[in-house]
Structure formats: structure tokens, C-alpha cells
């Protein structure tokens, strides 16, 4: 004679076993743990600034001021080309680099202006006609972005400078 298994009790027993097993696993993993997290972000806003030279000439000589008309801080330097001998009367942070350039040692902030570099000259004393001759004193200015060294000091790296320039 064939014995018939009733499915219901068997299923119930299986479910009970499964539940018991789950309970055991749960207790084995019950270690105290906690976690927390946070995020943050900062946008990088770097770029090349633009500078322009402001020159006025009077009886004292040529007054040179560099204006930072861009959006970023920079360092600036100037070089003067002239057919006659010139001399310099610096004020503030202007310094003779000894390489033909005059360097402004302070950071020139966006929207700021340097102190004045006065370029003095004497007219050639040869003849009366010489005085009437026109001559140019050309000021070339360059800028470089402010970079920081490991200690956080702002430095001008003129060897690595990449300037915006124009052939106009």
C-alpha cells in the first residue's frame, strides 16, 4: 500500500527550519559597526590675465605703470628699448633683475596697478639739429600667473611663462 505524504506539515517544517537558520546567521553577524560619510568639492578657476602699460611723458622722463585689467593675479616685468641712454628711478617693489628686465616683486592683483617706474633720459648734446630728432623709448611688458611653492609662497616662474600675445 502506498503511503501518502501530506505536503502541508512538510512545508511548514521546512519553513520553520529556514527561519531558524536565518536567526542563527543573524546572531553570528551582530557586531557593532557604524559608518558615516561626507563629500566636498571646489571648482578650479584659473586663467591668464591681461595687463596693459600706462605711459606718460613729461620733463622728468617717462612714467611707467602696469595695470592688471584681467581677472587673475599676476607678476609683471618690463624691458625698455631706446637708442639713447636711459636711467631708472624705481619706486616701491620695482627691482632691477640685471638681465635687462625690471621686475615688480609684489603680486599684482586683478584690477590693481603697479607703483611707478620712472625712465629718465637726456637729449643728445651734439647739435641743435639733434634735439629736433625724434626718438622712441619703447616699453615692453610681460606678465606671468602667480604660482605657489610647496610652502605656499607666491612666486613668479619666468622660465615657465606662457603669455598671451598678439601680432597686431
Amino acid at each position: 500500500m502506498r503511503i501518502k505524504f501530506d505536503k502541508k506539515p512538510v512545508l511548514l517544517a521546512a519553513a520553520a527550519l529556514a527561519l531558524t537558520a536565518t536567526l542563527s546567521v543573524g546572531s553570528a553577524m551582530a557586531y557593532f559597526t557604524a559608518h558615516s560619510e561626507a563629500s566636498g568639492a571646489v571648482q578650479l578657476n584659473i586663467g591668464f590675465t591681461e595687463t596693459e602699460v600706462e605711459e606718460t611723458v613729461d620733463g622728468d622722463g617717462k612714467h611707467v605703470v602696469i595695470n592688471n585689467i584681467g581677472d587673475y593675479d599676476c607678476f609683471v616685468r618690463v624691458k625698455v628699448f631706446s637708442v639713447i641712454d636711459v636711467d631708472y628711478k624705481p619706486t616701491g617693489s620695482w627691482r632691477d633683475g640685471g638681465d635687462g628686465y625690471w621686475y615688480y616683486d609684489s603680486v599684482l592683483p586683478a584690477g590693481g596697478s603697479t607703483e611707478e617706474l620712472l625712465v629718465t633720459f637726456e637729449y643728445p648734446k651734439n647739435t641743435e639739429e639733434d634735439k629736433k630728432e625724434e626718438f622712441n623709448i619703447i616699453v615692453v611688458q610681460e606678465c606671468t600667473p602667480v604660482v605657489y611653492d610647496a610652502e605656499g609662497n607666491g612666486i613668479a616662474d619666468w622660465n615657465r611663462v606662457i603669455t598671451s600675445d598678439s601680432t597686431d
Partner: protein
Amino acid sequence: MKKNKKSFPLKPVLLLSASALLLLGSTIGSTRAALTYYSENYSVQVNMPSIGVTLMENGKEISSKNYTDSGEWAETKGELLSDMLGKDGKLTPGKKYEEKLSVKNSGNIDTFVRVIITKSWQDEAGKATDLSPELIELNLTGNGWEQAKVASSPERLVLYYTQALPAGETTPELSDTIRIDNKIAEMVTKQVSPDGKTIQYVYDYNGYTFHLDAEVNAVQTNNAKDAIKSAWGVDVNVSSDETSISLQ
């Protein structure tokens, strides 16, 4: 016809009464027992150990998760780097900014803790995988913190504090400064105007955002080896007094 008078059998009635009394008594007993049981349980719950962990940045609490006496998690979530730039407001490549990260044990049991830091660049479209996370330099102090070299990468740092952190205490700072490498200023693209007269350079990284994510994990010191394996999935060596760990 005379009706037969039914006599109650005394014995079963007495037995029934006795059993009812016993049953009543047993019920009261169990009720008392139940009351006693709950009372003990309550007194135990007052002293329930609770775990908690808080991420600190420059001495300030940023995010935390603590298990409370009421049996619920209390969580706070803040933002990293929010005070990084200060009044100036401009991020300058090469300049070091203060970024002192540490972990506080804000629970009432001793714990072992670890921190997972992720660095990445993102633009408006999302994560920028072509930009190197190595340019984001988080200076690690190593002060009691050990970096899991195998689990770490240029983008991800996994740091374990090797001492047990007592309840209420804060670890030494795992980092002190954050800095964007100066090399970023060398990565420029030359742009020539259509008429060929004007040449301009633009920074490749300008407008990108660097992200710093920190996740801090805490686990009980009791049975630490198994607890750490279970919670973090890593094998560590634990000192016999369960006050320090070392990575395998």
C-alpha cells in the same frame, strides 16, 4: 411516577475546583514571572552599549552616525572643504590649504576605525576620468594611521587607525593639508584666432571641480579580528589585549 433525584458526585466536583484553583494560581505566577522578566530586561537596556563615529575636519564635526539609547540611528551629514578657500575665494594651484581630517569615537564603546578617501575631477558632464586624481595632493601625516597599499590607488586611499579608539576620544589627524599640484598650470592649450593674428593659451583644467569624499567606518574592539573580517572583509592582526591592529 416518582422522579429520580440526581445526586452530584462530590469527588469530581472537588477535583474540578482544585484544578481551577491551580490553574488560576499558575496564571498569576506566570504573570508575575513575566513582569519580573521585563523589569530585568529594561534595566539591561539602560546600559546598552552603543557605537558611534564622527568625521572631523579642521576640528569641526562634519558627519556622524550614532546609535542612540532609544535604539535608533542618529545621523548628521555635512560638507567637506566648505571653508577651504576662506575670504579669498580663489583656488590657487600649488598653494597648501588646511585639511586636517580625524575621527572621533562618538559612541560609548571602544572601536577600531578606518577612513576611505576618494579623490576625483568632475566637469559639468560628470566624472572626468582623463584628468589625474594624483594632482589632488592630500598630505598624509602617518600619525598612527597606516595606509592599506593593496586597497589604495591614486584615486582611493584606505587608511586604518592602528590603535583602539576609546569612547569619546579623537584620533590624531590623518592629513594636514590639501594642494593642487603646480603641474596643472603647465597643462595649457594654444588657441589661434581665425585670422591668425592672435595667439591665446587656456588652462586645460580651468572650470573643473575637484571632489573629495571621505567614508569613515567603526567596528567594536571586542572580538576584533572576526568583527573586522565580518564588517570590512579584511584580515588584520589584533594584539592579544585587543588595543591595536596591524594590516596583513
